[in-house]
């Protein structure tokens, strides 16, 4: 065990830090769930890609930097430290990308990965349907193979980034007599295909990053099938594993929130406002939790680098980070006191930062990527080996 970074890792960090300091936009970009913000974020992705920092851990041939996972964690730490924008193409680069690398044909890798790395093509998630949320196996949308095309019918909902994305990935029932996990195929769908209609969903925060996608005799080339026919469930489980696991939630994000929370605490103390004593403990717990999450991730990465796999443990992480994130935002709102409810354009809103928006987002943490209730079942049954019902 050696938790110190090597000289090379330190050099990598310094390089990343310098580049980011020179390139990160000085002003916060508008939310990528607005049309204007989406464009601005795509522009940032191009800058990142031009600098060679868009896909740090991907192989060079697919537009990546070929860095290992430790370097990726270091890059993420620096990325958050620099206050760089959120990744508008995260569905692609963190979820679908690794899945294509594992299940894609060579042609698919060449076709999709570089444009994903450069965000020339932005991806939407198509997991949920009106009757299939956390229970993904209840999928009803169908894809019928006709020659070299799929004819697709059905509806996907809660497609994140769906309002502005170019492509959508998801599962479709290809065996009409199948039930549950069987008879599904993983298909990549261009959102400009004929028969595809996208309806943005207006959300609590007034933005519309999510969309419903209606598929009405949409025709998609069979070249867009990822993995085997009727075996899409296995592919999706790998992707969902990426979502719950390492790739989506880099620990730097939570360490950065914890750091901001500590700053907010100090500012509030300095301002002379009376602070509920329990908040001192809450901030300390948040800091400790963020450290624990980071350390656990370095442990996992070490295991992966030495040939290990991530399995059901991803569920432990999902519960931990989603509850940590929620608690940190709740604590921040308590520290903000009366200012917590103000919108950023309110005259008295100085110093409120993005905590309210972040809170709304963090509230969804226990819900998306498989509700925490389901993760607890997974832990109980697959890690603790408690009996199934």
């Amino acid at each position, binding site marked *: 065990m050696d938790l110190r970074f090597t000289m090379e890792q330190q050099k990598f960090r310094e390089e990343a830090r310098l580049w980011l300091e020179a390139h990160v936009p000085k002003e916060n970009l508008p939310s990528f769930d607005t049309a204007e913000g989406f464009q601005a974020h795509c522009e940032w992705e191009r800058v990142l890609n031009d600098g060679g920092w868009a896909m740090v851990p991907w192989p060079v041939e697919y537009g990546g930097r070929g860095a290992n996972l430790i370097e990726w964690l270091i890059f993420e730490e620096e990325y958050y430290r620099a206050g760089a924008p959120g990744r508008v193409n995260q569905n692609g680069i963190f979820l679908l990308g690794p899945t294509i690398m594992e299940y894609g044909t060579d042609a698919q890798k060449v076709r999709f990965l570089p444009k994903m790395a450069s965000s020339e093509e932005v991806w939407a998630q198509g997991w949920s349907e009106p009757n299939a949320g956390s229970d993904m196996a209840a999928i009803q949308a169908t894809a019928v193979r006709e020659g070299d095309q799929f004819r697709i019918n059905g509806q996907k909902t809660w497609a994140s980034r769906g309002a502005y994305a170019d492509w959508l990935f998801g599962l479709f029932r290809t065996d009409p007599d199948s039930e549950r996990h069987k008879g599904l195929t993983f298909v990549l769908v261009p959102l400009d295909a004929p028969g595809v209609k996208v309806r943005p969903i207006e*959300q*609590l925060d007034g933005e519309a990053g999510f969309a419903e996608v209606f598929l009405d005799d949409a025709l998609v080339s069979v070249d867009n099938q990822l993995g085997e026919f009727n075996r899409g469930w296995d592919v999706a489980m790998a992707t969902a594993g990426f979502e719950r696991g390492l790739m989506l939630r880099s620990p730097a994000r939570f360490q950065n929130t914890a750091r901001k929370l500590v700053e907010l605490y100090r500012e509030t103390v300095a301002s002379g406002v009376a602070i509920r004593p329990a908040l001192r403990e809450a901030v300390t717990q948040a800091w400790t939790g963020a450290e624990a999450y980071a350390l656990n991730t370095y442990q996992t990465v070490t295991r992966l680098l030495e040939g290990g796999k991530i399995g059901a443990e991803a569920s432990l992480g999902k519960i931990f980070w989603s509850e940590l994130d929620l608690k940190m935002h709740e604590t921040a709102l*308590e520290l903000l006191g009366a200012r917590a*409810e*103000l919108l950023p354009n*309110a005259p008295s809103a100085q110093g409120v930062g993005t905590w*309210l928006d972040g809170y709304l987002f963090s509230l*969804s943490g226990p819900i998306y990527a498989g509700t925490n209730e389901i993760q607890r079942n997974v832990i109980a049954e697959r890690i603790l080996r408690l009996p199934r019902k």
Partner: protein
Amino acid sequence: MRFAFTEDQQLLQQTVHEFLQAECTAERVRGFWATETGRSPELWSQLAEMGVTGLLVPEEFGGLGMNDIDMVLLMEEVGRAGLAEPLISTAAIAAPLIRDLDNAELSRAWLPRIAAGEAIIAVAHTCNAFVSDAHIADLILVRHPQGDEIHGLVRDQCALTAEPANDPARRIFSMDWTPKPLTRIAESGRARRLWADVLSRGALATAAQQLGVTAKLIDLAVAYATERKQFGSPIGSFQAVKHHLANVRVQLEYAQPLVYRAAHSVATRAPARATDVSMAKSAASEAAAAAAKVSLQVHGAIGYTWEQDVHVWMRRAWSLGLAWGSAAWHRERIANAVLDQNAPAESFGYGASIA
């Protein structure tokens, strides 16, 4: 000792319940969000007609001459309906304040108008960072920043700045004003005592609304969990969902008597009424916050959409949680009384019962 409402009180609650369920639908509430004032003069005059605005106005001034115990069940209904009209400041605070000032001129000027639904009154209290509904107020009650004086301002005697908030039903304002002898309506010990009641009545009415909000959030979650299926069963049949909702129901069950007791303490001017109100407000705030979170969780992603009703009440839970003192603020007030013994703590139990 009788801890129950009268049949008359329950009947009035039922009437207001039916009226609000019919007239103040979630769709209509969302409609008010889009208007400039955020308020509905039509609903207001209907409420006045039912006697709600003038509930605490003495009969001689055209009101019902009732008390804070009668008011509490109605406020619960207001919360259940998600109604954001300025009933707390006008009907629950200003009416009894003006009544208790015992100033014939002021009473004649304002009480009949409150009862008739022709006056809206805002209240600026330091436990709120901002003033609610000042933009439509005919009178704004405020305490002199340096002294024991209550002032009553009309809108051109102060400068208002709108502060947009997360709950579109909330209309709050920063306010600048200069005390002048002309605007003073009470002073010295009397002003101080009455101003303490302002806080008690504000927190009490807010707590009562939070009970209604909590109940509504539970109802919404139960309805959704009964209908929505996952893995072939309604999600409401899963133990995890059941237990989360049961826990919130327990919180509601034990917040409720604290609120009703506080109403009794305020109405009877019990020495510990400030502490009793703080218990009510902190427990009701916690119940509403828990209900908002669990209800959103039960709804899943769909809870995030504009079309769903859950977020209307979730926003109410959040904004009422900050209004008239947060749970933490009130807990500290309880601690100051119970632990530090700086204020009367007990109006109940063996500690208080034989002096």
